[in-house]
Structure formats: structure tokens, C-alpha cells
């Protein structure tokens, strides 16, 4: 029980390639390494010299799980650089698209990636053998999210319809209407899902976090707004890089995000929920009350419940946006190219995603910086595992290993995202 090494050579049910190594010496955790060995893809390097209009399509390819997040952060950053604010109709349509991604991604994570841990299955397909109706329902719920992206974005993975200034074509009312009944159904299922996942057995584990998320004046955060932290920081998105930085650690191809003067921090559902509980819809708050969670929630394993509540919110928002939908007169705003620097941030399902671009006056990208949520969470994930192993060192090896994996999966880490951002500073 004294010296041991916990290894998970290939982390499963996460997006991308990573491994976890925990070294325990004399019953104490000596080292935790979330190794990300997925090779870097140098996005920020080859964004240079591309047209600013290409950013949403190119950056989407960083991650097939949350392409909309990349598209949204990039168009917001570009619009910031060009001094453009889109009107509310287009903004709502973007939110609708984003809700589609939240639904798809959250349902995928809850049922296909995370729930099997709680229910003791190796994957959702094995779970489907015993509980076919549960998995069938999940697939149906997820498909609604995908269809929202299909209709608004043209396809669910790497939508084609997003552009700086708006969309290429906006959907007709008749195209969206068939979604209404399905979204209503999905909303009911999401409420039920919250109830279901709240009955899971959660390890008795809480820890202190510095939460970081966007905050919008009226809405639960999806796009834009300000950046707030649980320690009271409240800054504009443009100020992000004054307060946050990334460091390269040798054991990972992903950079580690750190808050200056604070160290590690956490983004994602837990952060959003704890910092923006008051911005949730009354229904979503009610569901939270019913399943007895509220801020401040510090058990990362319970992030699955928060995802369920965010899913409730996403279905509800999607429904409202469609019900109020009137196609805008023009699918996009004209963009006047001007040199400048722009920053944009939005809330990917996994947490805040920050983009910054410098654009030259001929509309080419001079340089780009992209900070994905998993990079920001990496130090926190390692810390969670460290504390967890310290507390539960007595568990049998098999179980402890599985639980450690689960502790990583709490963050729904997207390793593909995290590694695709090795920045190249050429002097």
C-alpha cells in the first residue's frame, strides 16, 4: 500500500489522447501527471497569413466535439477587431446554434462518457445491453442538439454556415418549426435526467477552487460578457491576458493555464454554475433546487448534475429562441476590413474558450492566440487527482484507478483541443 504507481495508459471516453500517471510514495502522493501526448497541430502557426474570414472554419477543426465554440469565439474576436456588433436577431441565432452544441455535447458526456462510470459499465454500448431505453433516450436527446446544428449550421460537425458578421444563410421559419415539439420533449427528458443523475452515488469529495467563467448582464453565459472569478476578479475579455497566462510543462504537449497571482483555476460547468446561478432560468433553478444542488458546489463528481441542469437551460433557450424567431432581413452584417486586434470568448461546453487575433489592413491574420478550456483545466485536474488519491488511498487498486480516471472525466477534457495550441513565437 505504500509505494505504488497508478497508470492509465490511454484515457478512454475523453476526446483525444492522454494518459494519467500517479506516483504514491510512503502513502503520500508524490506526483500526478496528466500527460497529453497527442501531437501538436500548430494551428496558431498556420493561421498566420490566412484571411480573417477563414478563422471560423479553420479553428473549428481544432475540435470536432465543440466546433461551434471555436467558431463563436473566433467570430466574436474578429468582430471585435473590426469594430462590429451584430444585431440581436443574429446573436440569438448564434445562441441557438450554440445551444445545439451544448445539448449534443452535454448529453454525449453525461450518458455516453460519464454515466457508465457511475453505473459500473465500461461504455454506453454495454450499458445499452442492460438499459436499452436509457441509451435510446440519450441518443434521441442528443440528436435534437445535432439537428439544431444541422439546420442552423448546415452540419453538426464543423458547421458551414457561420461567418464573421453573421451567417451565410439564415433558416426559414418553417425549417425551425419542426424542432419545437422535439425540444419540448427534450426539455422534459433533461429535467428527468437531472433527477436521474442526482441519484448516482458520488464520492464524498470536495475541494477548493478558483472558478473562472464569463458573465453576461442578463443571461447565463454562452458568448461574450465579462470574465469573473470566484476570488472576485471582474474584467473585460480584452483584459484576459493581463490576468491569465499559459506555461509549457515538459510532460505535456498542452500548455497549462494559470491565473497570475493565483495559480490553477477551473473553467467549465461547475465554474459557470457557481458564478452565474442567478442567471439561470427560473425553471433551471427550480430543477437545481429539486435535486438539491446550488452554489457553491465543490464536488467535481457532481459536475454531471450541473451538466444536466445546463442541458435543461439549453433546451429551454433553444425553444424560446425558435418560438420568437423572425428571420433577419440580411443574414449577415457587412464587414469593413480594418487592421486591429480583437478578443473573443465564449463558453464551450467544457468551459471558457478565448481567442485573440491581430489582423492586418488587408484582412490577413498576423497572429493568433487560442486558449482552450482543457488547457486551462489541466493543472486543476492534476490537483483533483492528487487530493482524491490522498483521501482515498485505501481503495483497492482497480477501483482507485477507475476513480482517478473518473476524476479526469469529470472535466470532460478535450485533449484534441488542448494540444492544438502550441504557440510559436518567432522573433
Amino acid at each position, binding site marked *: 500500500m505504500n509505494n505504488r504507481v497508478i497508470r492509465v495508459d490511454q484515457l478512454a471516453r475523453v476526446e483525444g489522447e492522454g494518459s494519467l500517471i500517479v506516483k504514491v510514495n510512503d502513502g503520500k502522493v508524490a506526483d500526478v501527471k496528466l500527460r497529453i501526448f497527442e*501531437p501538436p497541430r500548430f494551428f496558431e502557426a498556420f493561421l498566420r497569413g490566412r484571411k480573417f474570414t477563414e478563422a471560423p472554419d479553420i479553428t473549428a477543426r481544432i475540435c470536432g466535439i465543440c466546433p461551434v465554440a471555436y467558431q463563436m469565439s473566433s467570430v466574436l474576436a474578429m468582430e471585435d477587431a473590426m469594430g462590429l456588433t451584430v444585431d440581436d436577431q443574429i446573436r440569438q441565432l448564434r445562441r441557438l446554434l450554440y445551444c445545439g452544441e451544448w445539448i449534443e455535447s452535454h448529453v454525449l458526456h453525461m450518458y455516453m462518457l460519464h454515466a457508465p462510470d457511475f453505473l459500473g459499465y465500461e461504455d454506453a454500448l454495454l450499458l445499452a445491453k442492460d438499459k436499452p431505453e436509457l441509451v435510446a433516450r440519450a441518443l434521441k436527446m442528443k440528436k435534437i442538439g445535432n439537428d439544431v446544428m444541422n439546420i442552423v449550421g448546415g452540419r453538426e460537425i464543423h458547421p458551414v454556415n457561420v461567418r464573421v458578421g453573421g451567417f451565410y444563410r439564415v433558416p426559414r421559419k418553417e425549417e425551425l418549426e419542426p424542432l419545437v415539439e422535439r425540444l419540448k420533449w427534450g426539455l422534459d427528458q433533461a429535467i428527468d435526467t437531472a433527477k436521474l443523475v442526482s441519484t448516482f452515488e458520488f464520492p464524498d469529495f470536495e475541494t477548493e477552487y478558483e472558478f473562472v467563467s464569463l458573465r453576461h448582464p442578463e443571461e447565463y453565459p454562452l458568448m461574450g460578457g465579462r470574465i469573473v472569478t470566484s476570488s472576485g476578479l471582474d474584467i473585460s475579455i480584452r483584459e484576459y491576458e493581463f490576468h491569465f497566462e499559459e506555461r*509549457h510543462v515538459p510532460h505535456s504537449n498542452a500548455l497549462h493555464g494559470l491565473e497570475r497571482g493565483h495559480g490553477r483555476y477551473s473553467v467549465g460547468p461547475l465554474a459557470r454554475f457557481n458564478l452565474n446561478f442567478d442567471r439561470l432560468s427560473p425553471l433551471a433553478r427550480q430543477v437545481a433546487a429539486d435535486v438539491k444542488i446550488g452554489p457553491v458546489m465543490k464536488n467535481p463528481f457532481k459536475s454531471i448534475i450541473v451538466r444536466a441542469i445546463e442541458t435543461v437551460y439549453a433546451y429551454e433557450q433553444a425553444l424560446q429562441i425558435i418560438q420568437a424567431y423572425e428571420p433577419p432581413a440580411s443574414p449577415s452584417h457587412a464587414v469593413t476590413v480594418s487592421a486591429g486586434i480583437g478578443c473573443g470568448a465564449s463558453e464551450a461546453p467544457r468551459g471558457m474558450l478565448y481567442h485573440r487575433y491581430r489582423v492586418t489592413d488587408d484582412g490577413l491574420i498576423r497572429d493568433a492566440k487560442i486558449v482552450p478550456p482543457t488547457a486551462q483545466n489541466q493543472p486543476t485536474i492534476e490537483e483533483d487527482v492528487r487530493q482524491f488519491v490522498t483521501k482515498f488511498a485505501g481503495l483497492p487498486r482497480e477501483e482507485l484507478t477507475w476513480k482517478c480516471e473518473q476524476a479526469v472525466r469529470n472535466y470532460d477534457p478535450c485533449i484534441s483541443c488542448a494540444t492544438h495550441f502550441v504557440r510559436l513565437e518567432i522573433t
Partner: protein
Amino acid sequence: MPPKKPKVAVFKFASCDGCQLSLLDAEDELLLVAGAVDIANFPEASRRVLPGPYDIGLVEGSITTPHDVERVREIRKQCRVLIAIGACATAGGIQALRNWKDVKEFTRTVYASPEYISTLDRSMPVGSYIHVDFELRGCPINKHQLLEVLNAYLNKRKPTIPTSSVCMECKLRGTVCVMVAQRTPCLGPATQAGCGAICPTYDRGCYGCFGPMENPNTGALAEHFEELGESRQDIMLAFRGFNAYAEAFRKESDAHE
């Protein structure tokens, strides 16, 4: 005894995960697929890993490190049928844009300890290192096409994956040509069908994410782009996209360098 189900494995190299996610996105068919095959190795979806050999291996992602090369060779040995899925695996993907740059230099300037980072000069398609039985195009692949390919191999027939242009799909779908009616440059006439011509249907030009079609006439298309007022640089960038390193597109972009 029911007949043994074919074992299917999914492998990932440098990629965005989107292509393998297509399998999970096939909501209506996923459980049918799971019933028809034994998903033996699919880390994105399961912690269960059954040892090879596998009947069908789906390989996503491009080869970018020396370790990748070894691994993909090993995977080839393990798979009876090996199918490369997506632009990364079939053409090197968007990350092949680095093939025009000096990557070693990049790495040295970026990493504090460059010895930890091991990359090849180029991001290459899987097929440049091993024999591939079928290449399924797309960035991302189309999930219906993925199901069709799986289905075809399970039923021992040829997959119905046309290699003709996006234009054909565009017309089959009844979309109004954006290049003719709106003078929007469109790569459709040189790009392989498969996406369902979504871009033109959403009022924009095709950006070539399914790679070059069967013997494309990229030169004639580039000329037409010029007539539409595109600059040399625009044309270079248009061909140097998600399938930049696919031969026909590479040559055309180089010609406009």
C-alpha cells in the same frame, strides 16, 4: 451459436476527433451498429479494449511523429481491412499546412525542452506509410457515408461512394449554383461529392473539405476564379485548405504561390 461478430476498432492520430465522433453522431444507427459488430477498441467511447486482430480498423488523423509511423504500421498488421477516415487520414488534414513551413524551427522556438517534442517535418496521410483498403473523404466525413462503407465491408460489396464532383450533388439536390447566380467562387467543380453540397445550399461556395474529385481540372477552375476577381493569393488559399496536401490541390495552390 450466433456467428462471431466482426471486430471493429477505431484509431486516432493527429486530428480533431470529429470523424470518429461521426459514429457516435449516427444516433439512429448506433445501436444497430453495436449489434452488428463488436466494437473492440474505441477509446473515445469505451474504456474496454479487446486485443486485435480486428476485422475492420478505422483510422482517423494524420501521421505527424516518428512514433505515429511505427504505430500505424503495427495497426496495419492488426487490421484485416483498414479504412482511413477523414481529410487528416486521407490527405494530411488542415495541419498539413505546416508542410510548407519549417517545423523543426517552430518547435525549437516554442518549447522550453524541444527534446520532449517529436514531430515529423510533414503531416502525412495514413496511406503514405501503409496500404489502405479504402479512403473515406471529408472534413469531417459524412456519417451516412461512414455507415455505407462499414455496411459495404460487412456485406462484402463495393461501397457506393461516388468520386464525381460536388456539383452533381448540388444539382441532384436542386440547389441554385452560387458560382453562376451569385458569382461566389466555389470549389465544387473540383471537389469530390459526399457532403450533400451543403455549402452551396447555405449560399456559400464549397471550400473543398472532401478533397479533389476524380481527375479534377483545377487549372480551369482557378482560371474561372480569376475571372470572378479572385487574386492569386485568394486562389492559393482556396486550394490550400482542409485538403491542402492532396496532390491536385497542392499543385494548384503551389502554382499560385
